[in-house]
């Protein structure tokens, strides 16, 4: 190879190209390419499987989120219901029991005749303790 053979903007000399093709030659023989193809297809199988698991995983995640939402909604609903019941019970108790003033203003004679002496004593003790 001489400098004259190697000029700018001209193709490289044939022997250089040939040496390059030798360096970059792909592996020969169909066995190699068949094996490579098998490896690629096996990787595709793994990739497809992992994609499938990702889809299933996505569904599982959605299911878990939905289940958690249902549980939270149920618990919150139960708590609200309990709170409402408690409120209603308190309101009922408050309205059904006489106030202290009302109780104190009740004359002893107004006590029901049906109440025995024990009941009356108990009532007085209760009123006095307030």
């Amino acid at each position: 190879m001489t400098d004259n053979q190697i000029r700018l903007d001209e193709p490289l000399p044939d022997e250089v190209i040939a040496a390059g093709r030798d360096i970059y030659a792909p592996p020969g023989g169909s066995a190699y390419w068949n094996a490579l193809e098998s490896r690629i297809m096996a990787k595709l199988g793994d990739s497809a499987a992992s994609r499938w698991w990702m889809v299933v995983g996505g569904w599982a995640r959605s299911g878990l989120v939905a289940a958690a939402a249902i549980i939270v909604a149920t618990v919150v609903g139960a708590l609200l219901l309990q709170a409402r019941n408690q409120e209603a019970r308190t309101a009922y108790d408050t309205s059904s029991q006489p106030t202290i003033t009302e109780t104190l203003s009740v004359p002893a004679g107004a006590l029901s005749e049906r109440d025995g002496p024990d009941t009356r004593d108990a009532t007085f003790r209760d009123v006095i303790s307030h």
Partner: protein
Amino acid sequence: MTDQSRNPPDERALTAAAQRGDQAAFGMLVRLHSKRAYAVARAIVTVHEDAEDAVQEAFVRAYQALDRFNLDQSFGPWLNRIVANAALDLARRRKVRSTDELHESLAGSFRDPGEADELRRRLGEALAQLPERMRSVLVLHDIEGYAHSEIGKTLGIPEGTARSDLHHARQRLRGMLRDLRND
């Protein structure tokens, strides 16, 4: 080398079948394109084992992206772009590879690694000293026979850049091989 010459008439049907999930059809596409894919990858990563890894990775990526492939296009250039990207990703990860190792891998042929003559050894060393893109353009054009437009599409660079890279790559090679005489 045109796209048509590398596009068998039933390739569109194979690609369409592969898009519908037919793995056997995709296997045929792998068979049809693996050698070209290897050549593209090898031009970029230079080492046989890395080229093989890049080809495998590229076919997996292509399979996963099949639903985005437009059947009006040719499969080959689309795949080549994916191969080039896979090879470039691999090359970036392999940046730590020592220059000596690169010289060695380029100076030796895969077919007969023990029989490296002077020209091949020197050419291998010279190629290893070229910047990655310049070397890829030179190998794809001068050794693999790709047109500038195909190289541009494959490497994702303008055609003019591919021409310019080729010019500079040849110039550098000539400088490095100036003292070689074969007479």
